[in-house]
């Protein structure tokens, strides 16, 4: 239980860390991105008329904001100014962002450029767009007029971000301003795509399949949302209505988030939640149909989504997880982390949304600041969920690396001989099993190191260990990948070679050659010497009997050697196959 508490604590601290990382990274990137210079930094004064009635004048990049009432459908806002001389600029231009309105640009009362006027005349949806208007070469001193035709009701900021500068500079300023959304949007879009591919290629009956796919979908959707909100999709998706994409994708993301969060519920609640999801799905469909029919623009009453979101994501805030079972703290933790990501994402988006609302309604002076906050909050909110997912994966990997390492150590102890680093008897059994299962013939070689006891007695155990180690090394070098060698007892080794007897003899010849070479090279008082006997597995009925056979042959050979040397090594031991003595 104590451990449980510690885990939940660590999960909380991780959540806080993720929060700080995301916010810090966002602020860092925004801060870095705001380092740009205007070639020209002077406010231009505009005279403003609504439906040809003068309403005052404004300056800066949002001239209308402090002046008039919200505009309604059919209203025409006219802005006039005389362009000042900006000096030597190669490509004079200005940039603006228009919401729910079509814009005509007139130079000296002649129509110079039109934006979305055809849509306005046809009555199809316009949405919000960024425009870059390049000016004629001899712009200085000319009168310029913007006619803004409003398409929707209650638009208080129809035109903003109005900046005069050279054209490359304007691109540069724009890119810097949206650097955060553009980069995190790219990350979200492509990461979501890759995650989707991966979760799809995992088997369907995997327990986490659905939730992984859902979160991948959500990630992609959030990327699309982010890009469309700041009007960047135009770069790669031509001819798409950016605002429409934004509203539709945010509704769909909300829907997917709802389905995702419903997965943590109990049966009864799940039913209720499912009802809510279906209702919302039908609502989304209805909104899209209404928009297509031109009855209700999709951006109107968009505040309702917040209410819907509250209902859809209620399970996360109630946090009624499936009855916590014993021993699943780790999974509990991972759920907690993901739920935290969802929560934070949603809350951040609420902040961002209210920034926009407040910015356009009440705090008009801080419009630019609020846009900045909105960018940070929106991007941060979008990034938190995938980051939580990523951290979750990383935690699993760390945990499994740790377990593997522990396991590795344990198996090393269990299956390896400590002194010689050769496999031990337990792994011999496994190896034999695998050979037997494959029904293949192989040669069994039983080897006995001569004179170990003598070395131990005369030169000490350290020298005896050296002898064993050297011998094991020689074995490894000679047999290596051809077969399997292990140490079965004090001075007994065993080799399995999955080939014929001749090949085995060949290997053994090489082994004795190597031992002789070692004897010559290393000046020890003792000598590497071994006796061996071979038997084919096919010669006997079982491995066990074949082993006995090999052992007998080895023993005969040893006796012969001893007779040859007749060097007084004692030979009173009764030999039995070592695995019987076991």
């Amino acid at each position, binding site marked *: *239980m104590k451990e449980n508490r510690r885990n939940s604590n660590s999960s909380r601290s991780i959540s806080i*860390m993720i929060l700080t*990382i995301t916010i810090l*990274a966002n602020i860092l990137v925004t801060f870095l991105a705001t380092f*740009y210079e205007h070639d020209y930094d002077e406010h231009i004064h505009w005279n403003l008329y609504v439906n040809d009635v003068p309403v005052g004048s404004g300056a800066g990049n949002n001239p209308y904001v402090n002046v008039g009432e919200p505009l309604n459908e059919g209203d025409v806002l006219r802005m006039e100014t005389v362009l000042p001389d900006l000096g030597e600029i*190669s*490509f004079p*231009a200005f940039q603006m962002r228009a919401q729910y309105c079509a814009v005509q640009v007139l130079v000296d009362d002649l129509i110079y450029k039109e934006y979305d006027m055809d849509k306005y005349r046809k009555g199809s949806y316009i949405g919000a767009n960024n425009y870059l*208007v*390049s000016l*004629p*070469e001899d712009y200085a001193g000319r009168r310029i007029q913007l006619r803004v035709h409003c398409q929707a009701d209650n638009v208080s900021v129809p035109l903003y971000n109005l900046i005069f500068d050279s*054209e*490359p500079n304007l*691109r*540069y300023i724009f*890119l*810097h301003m949206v*650097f955060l959304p*553009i*980069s995190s949007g*790219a*990350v979200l*879009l*492509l*990461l979501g*795509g*890759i995650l989707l*591919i*991966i979760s799809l*290629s*995992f088997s369907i009956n995997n327990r*986490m399949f659905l939730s*992984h796919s859902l979160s991948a979908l959500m990630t992609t959707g959030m990327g699309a949302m982010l890009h469309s909100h700041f009007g960047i999709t135009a*770069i*790669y998706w*031509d001819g798409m209505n950016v605002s429409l994409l934004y509203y539709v994708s945010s509704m769909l993301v909300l829907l997917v988030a709802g389905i995702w969060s419903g997965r943590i519920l109990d049966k009864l609640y799940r039913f209720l939640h499912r009802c809510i999801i279906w209702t919302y799905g039908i609502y989304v469909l209805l909104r899209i149909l209404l928009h297509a029919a031109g009855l209700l623009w999709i951006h109107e009453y968009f505040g309702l989504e917040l209410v819907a979101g509250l209902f859809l994501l209620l399970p996360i805030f109630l946090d009624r997880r499936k009855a916590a*079972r*014993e*021993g*699943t703290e*780790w*999974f509990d933790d991972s759920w907690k982390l993901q739920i935290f990501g969802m929560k934070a994402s949603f809350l951040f988006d609420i902040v961002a949304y209210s920034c926009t609302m407040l910015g356009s309604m009440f705090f008009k002076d801080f419009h630019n600041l609020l846009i900045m906050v909105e960018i940070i909050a929106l991007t941060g909110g979008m990034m938190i969920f995938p*980051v939580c997912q*990523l*951290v*979750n*994966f*990383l*935690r*699993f*990997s*760390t*945990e*499994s*690396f740790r377990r*593997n*390492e522990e396991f*590795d150590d344990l*198996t090393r102890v269990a299956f390896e001989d400590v002194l010689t680093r050769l496999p031990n008897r337990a792994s011999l059994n496994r190896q034999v099993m695998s050979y037997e299962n494959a029904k293949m013939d192989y040669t069994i070689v039983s080897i006995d190191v001569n004179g170990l006891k003598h070395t131990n007695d005369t030169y000490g155990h350290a020298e005896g260990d050296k002898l064993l180690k050297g011998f094991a090394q020689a074995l490894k070098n000679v047999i290596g990948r051809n077969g399997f060698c292990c140490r079965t007892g004090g001075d007994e080794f065993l080799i399995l070679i999955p080939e014929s007897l001749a090949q085995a003899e060949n290997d053994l010849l090489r082994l004795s050659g190597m031992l002789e070479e070692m004897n010559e090279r290393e000046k020890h008082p003792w000598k590497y010497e071994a006796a061996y006997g071979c038997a084919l597995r096919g010669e006997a009925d079982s491995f066990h009997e074949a082993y006995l056979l090999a052992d007998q042959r080895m023993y005969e050979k040893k006796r012969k050697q001893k007779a040859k040397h007749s060097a007084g090594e004692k030979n009173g031991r009764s030999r039995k196959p070592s695995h019987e003595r076991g």
Partner: protein
Amino acid sequence: MESAKIKAAFNLSMQVSLAITFGFILTYLYLSISFTRLPDGILDVSGSWLTRTEGETFVRPNTRDRFLRKGEEVEIRFFAPTLYGSMNESLCFVSQGTAFVMYDWLGREVYSYGMDLLEEHRMIPRKVHFIRIPERAKQHSLCLQFVAAQNGARVRFRSAYYGDVEKLETIYFKRKSFALLCGLFLMGFGFLLIMLRFFFKGWFSKLYGTFFQGMLLFDIGLYTLCYNDLFSLFVRNERISTFVEYLSCMFLPILIHQCIMRNQDRRRKRLPYFICQLMLGMVGIVILLHFLKVVHINELGPVIQAVLLIWAFYALGWLTLTIRRDLERMGAELYANISRRCIYFGLYSMILLSLCDFFLSATGQSYGIFINQDTRGLFIMLGGCILIGDMLLSYFFHTVGSMQEEEVRERLEGLAYTDELTGLSNRAHCDRFMAENSVKHLKCVIVSFDLDGLKKINDIEGHQAGDAYLTGFAALLTENFGRETLLGRMGGDEFIMITTDLDVLKLDNRLYKMFLMAKDDQIRFSYGYAVSDEVPGGNLQTVYMLADQRMYRMKDQHYEESGEEKS
């Protein structure tokens, strides 16, 4: 079985990589086809130049880029038309390592770039030029005189456009949109990994190479952005952009090297470590030379390329060996092995794809006729995406692996904690539950049950009947108190129930009801209960003992009633 699993993992990473490649190509084709057609008012002037190298006559240029020698001069003639409905005709093209001056038909200078840099012997970077054609120069031919500042400099005749500047910039953006998205994605993902690694220092210490993988991805992103002239949009300084391009290109092998090295045994690291040091030294020398103005970094291009090429083949061999060696020592560390395999696979394809790119750029080829020719470094980007895919795949394997382990553990624990005969919790579980909740000071009521006459039934009717008697009681218990916190069998005929409902009166009623029900089924039992508050300290074992005592009191009563002997 394990090797089969590894093979499956390998196949899966292959599949995922293929799927990513497929998606990548599809997206790219979609983007390039939809932007291949030039909008009205833009002229592709790639073929309408006349060029002349020193002392020769004007000829039409080859479509393939020609590399220039240092100091070589090239003159280009070009007719600048007036376009209908356009006010800002301008010319857009790329120069690499060349300085140039543009004259109008009367020999007046219109635009010049890099001549001052050439005199000061500073680096002349690659730059995208947007040149406004003044009114006086239109309808006549323009003359551009290029001077190559380095070997291998070139004027990119291929992507030269003439038209309204607004549209030119738009088309410029759109044609590079894929590179922009991909580069930013790689950079952003790398940035995330680096940040995470940085913050969770102690935590991911076992996760080999997350940091370097992050760095590698960031580096690839940076390189592709620079290589596609997009980085200069953000810093607006082509000199920095070119410098960063070469720098990130040189860091590419080092980071890949580190990624491979992180996943290896310490014993095998000596040679790779040495090579890594060597390459770092090379980078240091190149930077030093650049800042001392001995050799500019972009003049070292061929040297860097040669080193990269040699290294790439070395790395491919090394990776192959490592993968083969890994195949032999599989076993216990299954998931680590699988994930390592995934990452190796990603790196492998990454290196191969970069080699493709390398050959393409070295021979001055582009990707093909149908594909939009303005995106460069496509294969490297693809490699980066595949690497990300394989990394995520390896994380997935870990997640799935731990989940399976957890499931097995749960099942085993379930076996260990249930009583086989009755399906209730067994004694071990009950004891553990009581021990854990004693620490928590759980307020609860413990009821102890004991069956009467089990021994008699066992003796007379046999053990099977006894078992049936026990299961019958267990079923009855579950029926009546199945929703309570814990039901368990403590031993032969002893049962336990723990409930957090402290309403003792209600409990007493329910127990009595159950007692009557049991009587109908010919089951007789005794019970006793105790509340945890009755015992100071709230040790549940003590509470259980108390309940047991009360149960025995009832049992004695029962025996008195029936007049039987105690069993």
